[in-house]
């Protein structure tokens, strides 16, 4: 254990994060192995262990499970060589291997199905793998010498490749060792394609990538021991697009350059820009989550200024709705269940969030204030995250997922199956919160009304789950830190997280913001950043992260940067060469408004107010500070349900109950018919039916009706007694069409 820790810790943490190779390089550079120290014979770490991985022996469902299978336990995917060697060579009273009569070894007899094996037959007698294991046992199961060169990283050759439909190519996987040696390990590598119909590869063995019949892209993952490499394969659309067409595409900023570059690779072309009215509505909904008023729409459409789109975005970002809209998104991530944390705490963290966005505090400061929060949960809202997650391991895994996009949760119990994270990383990260002190009344569900104070203790330690030993705080892939008596490790963590060399920190936020504005993340899910879940455009995500950092983590500037790209203003309507694109942003992707935005939009169109419990009259859904305020509308269109475990994630999928709710809900029909609502007022006004139709279109669709639409709508309206009824029906109609409820 200690040996392992030293090995991992010897790297210079942050750099090792960027390139997994780096950390080990630093360490191994002073253990210069002799030239050609390539394993002469077959040894455990370099030859046998990779086979155990490739054959699936150490997979989570087999012997890799924390307590193994039928008494034979291996570390998950071979992350702990000492443990695995012990299990194979010594445990089971040595029955698993018989050097004197290697073919009688349980290891071989089970794997070949000669003895009953829960996992079935994995290899054939006489196969190359069989012979390798056999000769290793016969030679007395040598381990790979500790001073032998270590694998630094694994690469695929090629790293990316463009293919014609149905074309094949051999993919090689090369392990690079600390002595500079490179070794072809294709045969012992496990492969997986993330889209088998685009490009497939056998699970292991020959490494031949086979393109499917249709254009698209796929990532081929190669795993050799704990190392993962990804080869991206593209099958461009048939037909060629002249270079000059790409050169001529407009570029407002570097986002466009990177999106066009990706499209070029796929042989795709973007849609034309959206029309003015569509852009205007989209900008309002994406920046501040509300519809523009009739006057705002008219003014924008009349404006002849050449940079009116840019001016619009600048103005939107200065509006008061901005803070409510973006704080509301963050509340989804941080808002506790009032039954658990207490209603006053819930209110406090909500106010803290809104205030942070109102002041547009830089994102690094935002995160620092949260994770180092001290004081009363009744006064400093940021402290509430510690009240809600009283255990170091709870807050640790939340912080790594929210702010680094690293899901350590799995590593609580076992080595992370798709990543480099181990239990040491998990407990080391959680240990940053081991000195969080609490005074006052802690959680006492279901009321939890008390006040609690969060402070930094001078001592406190976390014990490693499996070993029970005290754990020192350790950044991901970093070195354990020794703490002075008055140090708050959370301060150190904040410095490390926001440091300019931390690649995860700006990336996950850049991806979140991109997803909110463009309707889809570059990485999906937005907070799951890992080699085995590649971004649809890695270069773009890197660029956004860099830009965000260089702008001092200014959130508004990041939003502005994305919204002023040409890409943001593209039409959603597919053109000839991008019909199949659903992730490269060659067009805007339509999305239903989220629940609060839609409810506010309905009320704005009808000119009515919602009466929310626990909020002053006139408040908007976007200002709700607790999910406890009852609203059938919001429940139907989806908001987190904190009584569920896990709280349901928001879905933007349209459902039949939602359609029914807009059509038939008694509450909505009552609003339509209110004397104080807009339909009644319009009916009572002196406006002509034609004027009323134009106004209704401007309210609901934020555009003028076409002459055909105008004509058709007027035909449904009457004069006299039935005028009001007709106008109500017109409002009902527009609210019940997708043009109203979708961001286009």
């Amino acid at each position, binding site marked *: 254990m200690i040996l392992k820790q030293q090995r991992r810790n010897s790297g210079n943490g942050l750099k090792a994060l960027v390139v997994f190779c780096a950390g080990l390089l630093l360490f191994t550079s002073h253990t210069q192995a002799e030239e050609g120290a390539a394993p002469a014979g077959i040894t455990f770490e370099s030859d046998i262990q990779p086979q155990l991985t490739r054959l699936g022996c150490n997979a989570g469902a087999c012997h890799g499970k924390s307590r193994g299978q039928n008494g034979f336990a291996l570390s998950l995917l071979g992350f702990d060589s000492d443990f695995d060697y012990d299990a194979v060579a010594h445990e089971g009273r040595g029955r698993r291997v018989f050097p004197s009569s290697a073919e009688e070894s349980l290891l071989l007899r089970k794997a070949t199905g000669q003895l009953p094996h829960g996992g079935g037959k994995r290899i054939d007698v006489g196969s190359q793998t069989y012979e390798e294991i056999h000769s290793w046992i016969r030679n007395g199961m040598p381990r790979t010498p500790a001073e032998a060169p270590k694998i630094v990283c694994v690469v695929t050759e090629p790293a990316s490749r463009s293919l014609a439909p149905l074309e094949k190519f051999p993919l090689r996987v090369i392990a690079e060792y600390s002595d500079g040696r490179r070794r072809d390990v294709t045969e012992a590598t496990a492969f997986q394609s993330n889209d088998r119909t685009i490009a497939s590869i056998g699970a292991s063995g020959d490494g031949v990538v086979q393109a499917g019949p249709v254009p698209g892209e796929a990532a081929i993952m190669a795993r050799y021991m704990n190392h993962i490499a990804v080869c991206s394969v593209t099958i461009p659309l048939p037909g060629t697009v002249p270079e000059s067409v790409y050169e001529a595409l407009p570029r407002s900023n570097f986002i466009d350059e990177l999106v066009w570059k990706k499209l070029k690779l796929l042989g795709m072309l973007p849609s034309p820009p959206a029309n003015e009215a569509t852009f205007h509505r989209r900008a309002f909904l994406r920046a501040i989550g509300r519809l523009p008023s009739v006057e705002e729409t008219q003014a924008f459409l009349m404006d002849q200024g050449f940079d009116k789109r840019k001016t619009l975005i600048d103005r939107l970002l200065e509006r008061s709705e901005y803070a409510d809209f973006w704080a509301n998104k963050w509340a989804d991530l941080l808002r506790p269940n009032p039954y658990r944390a207490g209603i006053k705490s819930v209110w406090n963290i909500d106010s803290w969030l809104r205030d942070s966005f109102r002041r547009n505090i830089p994102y690094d400061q935002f995160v620092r204030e949260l994770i180092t929060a001290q004081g009363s949960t009744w006064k400093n809202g940021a402290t509430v995250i510690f009240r809600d997650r009283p255990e170091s391991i709870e807050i640790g895994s939340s912080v790594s997922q929210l702010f680094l996009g690293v899901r350590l949760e*799995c590593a609580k119990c076992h080595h992370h199956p798709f990543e480099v994270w181990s239990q040491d990383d998990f407990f080391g990260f959680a240990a940053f919160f081991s000195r969080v002190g609490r005074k006052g009344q802690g959680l006492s569900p279901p009321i939890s009304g008390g006040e609690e104070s969060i402070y930094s203790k001078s001592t406190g330690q976390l014990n490693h789950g499996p070993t029970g030993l005290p754990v020192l705080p350790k950044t991901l892939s970093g070195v354990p830190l020794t703490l002075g008596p008055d140090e708050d490790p959370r301060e150190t963590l904040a410095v490390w997280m926001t440091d300019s060399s931390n690649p995860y920190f700006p990336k996950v936020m850049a991806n979140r913001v991109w997803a909110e504005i463009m309707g889809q993340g570059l990485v999906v899910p937005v907070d799951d950043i890992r080699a085995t879940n590649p971004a649809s455009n890695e270069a773009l995500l890197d660029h956004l992260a860099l830009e965000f950092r260089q702008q001092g983590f200014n959130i508004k500037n990041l939003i502005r940067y994305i919204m002023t790209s040409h890409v943001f203003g593209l039409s959603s309507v597919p053109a000839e060469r991008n019909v199949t694109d659903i992730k490269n942003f060659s067009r805007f992707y339509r999305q239903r408004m989220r629940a609060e935005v839609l409810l506010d939009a309905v009320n704005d169109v009808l000119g009515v107010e919602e009466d929310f419990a626990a909020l002053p009259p006139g408040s908007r859904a976007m200002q709700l500070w607790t999910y406890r305020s009852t609203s059938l509308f919001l429940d139907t269109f989806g908001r987190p349900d904190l009584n569920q475990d896990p709280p349901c994630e928001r879905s933007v999928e349209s459902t039949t109950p939602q359609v029914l709710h807009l059509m038939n809900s*008694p509450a909505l029909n009552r609003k339509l018919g209110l004397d104080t609502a807009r339909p009644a007022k319009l009916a009572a006004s002196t406006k002509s039916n034609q004027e009323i139709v134009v106004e209704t279109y401007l309210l609901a669709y934020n555009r003028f009706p076409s002459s055909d639409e105008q004509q058709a709508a007027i035909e449904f309206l009457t004069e006299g007694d039935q005028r009001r009824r007709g106008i109500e029906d017109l409002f009902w*109609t527009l609210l019940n*069409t997708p043009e109203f409820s979708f961001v286009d």
Partner: protein
Amino acid sequence: MTFHRNCEGLRRRDCLKLGLGALLGGGLVDSLRSRGRAEGLTARKTSSILVWLDGGPSHFETFDPKPNAPAEIRGEFNAIQTKIPGVLFSENMTKLAAISDKLTIVRSVRHDQNNHGAGNHYMTTGAPTRIPVSCGAFVSFHPSMGSVVSFERGASDGLPPYFSIPDMSRSGGPNFLGARHAPFVVSDDPNQESFMVRDVTIPKDLDDARAINRRKMRSRLDQFVRFHDQAAGDPVIGADENYQQAVSLMTSAAAQRAFEMHREPGQIRDSYGRNAFGQQALLARRLVEAGVPFVTLYNGGWDHHSNIFPAFRTQGQKLDAVVARLIEDLDQRGMLDTTLVIVMGEFGRTPMISTLPGSTTPGRDHWSSAISVLVAGCGTPRGQVIGATDPRGYAAVEKVYAPENLVSSVYTKLGINPDKILYTAAGRPTHLVSDPRPIAELM
């Protein structure tokens, strides 16, 4: 505490036994049965109710107890006899044990997806996830069983063909089959007196003529551009499908009637248990009766990393009572022969009882090498156990089946060819199930 629990448990069980006895002896059941048979003559199509135990229920504490294993594997509960000679259930499954002659237990399903996101996907779609996903994931790479049944079978009388009550499971969606094959979720609690499925009727103060006029107006004025190429993935097409479904639901008398729980005799409602889960099961039966081919009864909270034993004394007993009642009721109505009931979760639980870091009570962790699945109805042989795990419950070792085989069995029973080729949005061919062999012993 213990006294109270035991006492209450006994009383409830006795009451139920009495209640059922009375029912069985009376004329009501006979009349129901004859009615069911009469209706059956009109060749009622097959249906399925999937009781989804989200989180992954332990095989030890349900249908695969290991009374001879060491205590750290066996756990706190005893094994009890069932009606199948030599077959034991865990002690909280008393009512299911009593009707075990109507059930099949498959003890030998296994797969290799040990987290909720991937396990849910594998078990509910019959396909593993394309890329590794983690526990928190809500992913869909392939249509769920309910969506496929909806796509293949449709429903009559304006009812949506696929319901999920009271929630959709993580991978329960339609994927490339499109939004009209997403489940219709009934989230309101049918145990409430005021229960009605929301918004399925026009508002009270609106007359039919006006409602019809509104819909006419909508069809005339809705001029939003749709992208009809499926590969473009236009979500508005999905919303249109939802709209069509909404209108047919509103205009269907049969659909409206299925939701009217108050039409159900009080005795029947009592027999299912006056709690949300019980009444949801009853609603599922009503929907199947009305012609819905697939209903998912979603029941959460089975991820017992800790506190497993107390949980099975409450939650486990409730499950036992509700599922047993559902199967009996279906049988009494002659519906069991055409209704497939499946009870499962994403995986089993670890043999060795353990206490997680930071936890104080013991539990079991995720374990996909041994999964027990309860299957009843639709021609499934009655009173058998298929396959076995080793003596300590580590792995399925006899008649080992994959989720593909289980899902293929469901499709086959519902008259769907599991070997069928479907086309995704991009026009790519994909097999409905990659291994279309059903579990022979279920057929």
